[in-house]
């Protein structure tokens, strides 16, 4: 039986970042994911903000990794051809007292090494954010903040990791891990895996994985965030990410620019019991709307086209990234809540260091394919470019999703790149993510998925087994095959 050098549990942005970093070396790597697709856990509900490093305590691991990650992500997004946009962010103050807090934040952030910070006045705000509440008196401007699509980042990292030899196993839920020197036996829903090192990046379930090996000194407490997505028509509502002053538990309700163009408002921050409680609520909506309107008064609930809830995997105030000396070879990467997405490339480097220190031998591969071909998205490009694409491949002109302008070619590509579910197609292409919510394009996407995956139409799911879209195919009743 194959013995992997490293098994990574959990294929969110943390797990895939680590996998891609390790793929530079002569190592056998397995990445295990319990869901049908990658990024279907914590990562899929990430806001997509690349934080500059502000709003973190100066001595914290997450603060340090966030500042590093903000630099590293630029190179990675270029190599993987995933759009990263440096929008800058504004933390807004509404009175003299809050200006004092801004100065405090600025000082803390500068200690962490956040570059380019400046306090901007009312006139600057008027000029640069015309929709901002005119009661705002000052802002802390952080130019290095930016936006990226969290799922496209995960899919890019995973794709590139696979190109460089990483093996990914989906629908592979870890049931138990046994440390039988010198390696680990990992019992999963898809059978047994053996590995010399185990990295636990299981997000919400990291405490349960850790407990399997006797390490139970932390608990993951889910903190729910509800987010509300606005119509793309409102793309230019703001020019920066807009933050209020942070509270103890979160960065507050934000006005978020996203890589897809739709602004987003949220998230809430509410400690919940269940790790599978992704429900949204009227109270969450009302809270987010009232806070968002305080920043941008013109926001209207009629502009909301979608909403969702995500769970932050909270394990105390900081990230837990450490080798467990009592279980040599086992590394916990837990409690990766905000700014986890930003920090992920730095987390990956830190984990490599930890592995090195604990005996794993790193030998560089003679060839590492750092680059990934760009996936074209019509909605991101001007008509002149679209015209060229359509000339090259006619199916770029065959529009499936009218609201977000997604072609049959893009959907076929997404399926070829690993999309297995309707949500997987949505996250990769934006088809069904617009104002009609898939009313017009669902059937067409189902057909493309069924054909590409060689599945019966009844086997097409929203996000994995149990979420089948239709209950029965009745075409046989009229003597037709679907």
């Amino acid at each position, binding site marked *: 039986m194959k013995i992997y050098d490293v098994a990574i549990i959990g294929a969110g942005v943390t797990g895939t970042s680590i996998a891609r970093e390790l793929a530079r070396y002569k190592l056998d790597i397995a990445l295990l994911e319990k869901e049908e697709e990658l990024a279907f856990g914590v990562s899929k509900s990430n806001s997509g903000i690349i934080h500059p490093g502000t709003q973190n305590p100066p001595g914290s691991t997450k603060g340090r990794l966030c500042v590093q990650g903000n630099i590293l992500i630029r190179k990675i997004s270029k190599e993987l051809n995933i759009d990263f946009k440096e929008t800058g962010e504004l933390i807004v103050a509404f009175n003299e007292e809050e200006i004092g807090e801004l100065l405090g934040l600025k000082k803390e952030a500068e200690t962490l090494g956040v570059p380019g910070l400046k306090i901007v006045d009312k006139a600057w705000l008027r000029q640069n954010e015309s929709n901002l509440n005119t009661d705002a008196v000052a802002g802390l401007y952080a130019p290095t903040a930016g936006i990226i699509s969290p799922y496209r980042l995960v899919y890019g990292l995973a794709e590139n990791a696979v190109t460089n030899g990483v093996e990914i196993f989906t629908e592979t839920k870890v049931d138990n891990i046994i440390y039988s020197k010198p390696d680990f036996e990992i019992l999963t829903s898809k059978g047994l895996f053996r590995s010399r090192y185990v990295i636990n990046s299981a997000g919400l379930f990291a405490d349960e994985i850790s407990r399997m090996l006797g390490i139970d000194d932390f608990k993951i407490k889910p903190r729910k965030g509800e987010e509300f997505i606005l119509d793309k*028509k409102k793309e230019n509502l703001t020019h920066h990410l807009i933050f209020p002053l942070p509270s103890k538990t979160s960065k507050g309700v934000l006005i978020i620019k996203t890589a897809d163009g739709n602004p987003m408002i949220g998230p809430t921050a509410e400690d919940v019991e269940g790790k*599978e409680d*992704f*429900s*949204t*609520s*009227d109270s*969450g*909506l009302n809270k987010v709307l009232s806070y968002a309107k305080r920043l941008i008064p013109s926001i209207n*609930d*009629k502009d*909301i*086209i*979608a*909403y*969702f809830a995500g769970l932050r995997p909270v394990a105390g105030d900081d990230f837990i990234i450490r080798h467990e000396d009592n279980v040599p070879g086992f590394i916990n990467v837990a409690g990766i809540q905000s700014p986890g997405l930003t920090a992920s490339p730095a987390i990956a480097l830190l984990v490599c260091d930890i592995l090195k220190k604990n005996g794993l031998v790193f030998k560089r591969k003679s060839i590492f394919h750092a680059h990934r071909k760009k996936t074209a998205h019509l909605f991101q490009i*001007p*008509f*002149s470019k*679209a*015209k060229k694409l*359509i*000339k090259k491949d*006619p*199916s770029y*002109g*065959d*529009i499936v999703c*009218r609201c977000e*302008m997604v*072609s049959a070619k893009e959907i076929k590509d997404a399926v070829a790149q690993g999309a297995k579910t309707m949500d997987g197609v949505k996250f990769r292409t934006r088809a069904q993510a617009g*104002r*009609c*919510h*898939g*009313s*017009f394009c*669902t*059937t067409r996407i189902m057909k493309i998925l069924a054909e590409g995956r060689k599945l019966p*139409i*009844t086997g097409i*799911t*929203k*996000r*994995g*087994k*149990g*979420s*089948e*879209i*239709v*209950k*029965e*195919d*009745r*075409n046989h*009743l*009229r003597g*037709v095959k*679907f």
Partner: protein
Amino acid sequence: MEEVKLVAKRELIIVGGGPAGMAAAISAHENGVKNILLIERDQYLGGILNQCVHTGFGINYFKEILTGPEYADRFIKKVRNIPEIEISLKSIAVSLTAGKTITFLKPGRLETVKAKAVIMATGCREKTREMVHIQGTRPAGIFSAGLAQKLINIEGLLPGKEVVVVGSGDIGLIMARRFILEGAKVKAIIEIQKETRGLLRNMVQCVEDFNVPVYFNHKISRIFGKDRVEKVSVIKVGDNFNEIFGSLFEIQCDTILMSVGLIPENELIEMAGVRMGENKTSVPGIFVCGNSFKIYDIVDAVTEDSMLTGKRAAEYIKNL
């Protein structure tokens, strides 16, 4: 948006090949327009009529009772027989400018065409669960009534077996009957208003005749289910839609159909900075008709009004 300097190649471009667009095209032609381009995003003309296999169409216009596809077919034949109307299928307009240029995509082509006049007949879309803010989870099994109609009538697929319809719009009522005819169980129609928003004849023929329970003054309070819809909770509301304490109850179901209203699909018009008024828009030569102008109850009225729009466009072109 790239500015393209173009000469008007067409007299008239009509965006949308449903009942409104076809009526406008026929009428514009009858009134002397010779060079018409009709673009339709689907692979066939007729628009949403194609999935409306029930009867009730044409009573006013043809004094006959037709199905949706039959009603559409009469116009499709007519349009196809007019050589001055060029039909471009699988063609989706992605931009309209106040200068009356339309950019559209179709398999193998992206084209920008300028015309003397433009008629937008892009139809409407259904309001979604998101727009009426129903709290709870987001599992599979939540459909707009129109999507369910397409799945059953066009694709031969049964979306679910135990259905709750939210809202009493016509499509919802018609789909309640359709599900029953397919052997599914319709457990309830939940309507927040005091009375139906659908046509009386649909209340009788689709609901009363099939003994579907209707809850007026009620709303869905929450959707449950992790992967697939498992149940909904329903609550009674007062005159101001205030929730009435103690009235909450649950209904087990695997499917929710949303039939809470239609919205004119006029994003392109909006993006072009064109404002809509009665009979005309803020830009002379750009017209809007059919459900993209306002939501109609019956297609016969769409046809009549769109005929008028076609005529107006013809007069506009003549007077240039």
